């Protein structure tokens, strides 16, 4: 019987065939969810999806697009937001 923390589905299961021929289940951390636009809910581009601890170690410029509201709004919603401010 596996440990309780492994049964809770907090970790994802990866089936791996070992050199000896048996298949084993490896328990790995889950990949973070897709980022979405705060206005329209569309999936955002330019944000890499990986394990969160690895994502944190990336430089800022690789975590989000380099424009105003980058990583929060999609480009179209950002344009509308800027036009509202005029």
């Amino acid at each position, binding site marked *: 019987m596996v440990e309780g923390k492994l049964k809770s589905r907090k970790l994802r299961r990866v089936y791996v065939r070992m050199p000896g021929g048996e298949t084993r289940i490896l328990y790995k951390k889950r990949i973070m969810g897709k980022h979405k636009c705060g206005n329209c809910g569309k999936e955002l581009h330019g944000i890499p999806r990986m394990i969160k601890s690895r994502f944190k170690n990336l430089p800022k410029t690789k975590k989000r697009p*380099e*424009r*105003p509201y980058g990583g929060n709004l999609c*480009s179209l919603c*950002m*344009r509308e937001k*800027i*036009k509202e401010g*005029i």
Partner: protein
Amino acid sequence: MEIGRLCIKIAGRDAGGECVVVEVIDDNFVMIDGNTRRRKCNIMHLEPLDKVLKIKKNASHSDVADAMEKAGIKMIKKGAARKKAEKKKEAKVKENKISKKEKKK
């Protein structure tokens, strides 16, 4: 789009910055300068405002900056100019702190 038209850039990393059309290249592209980098830009990436500044064709950055400040738009200093301004501010703050301490004594 004519030369001197004040716009706001709505795409890319310069988005939100005011700029002036310096040169009309063809139906789709113009040259811009101002609170953005001086670069070729698609007309679809610009939101025109109702002001037209008086500048010459291919005006230099300093000319554009003067015209924009006359029109009441603050120029954001970038690069070396910004660092200089920041250093001056820091020096002033330090002086104020020292003078306050002396007063207390």
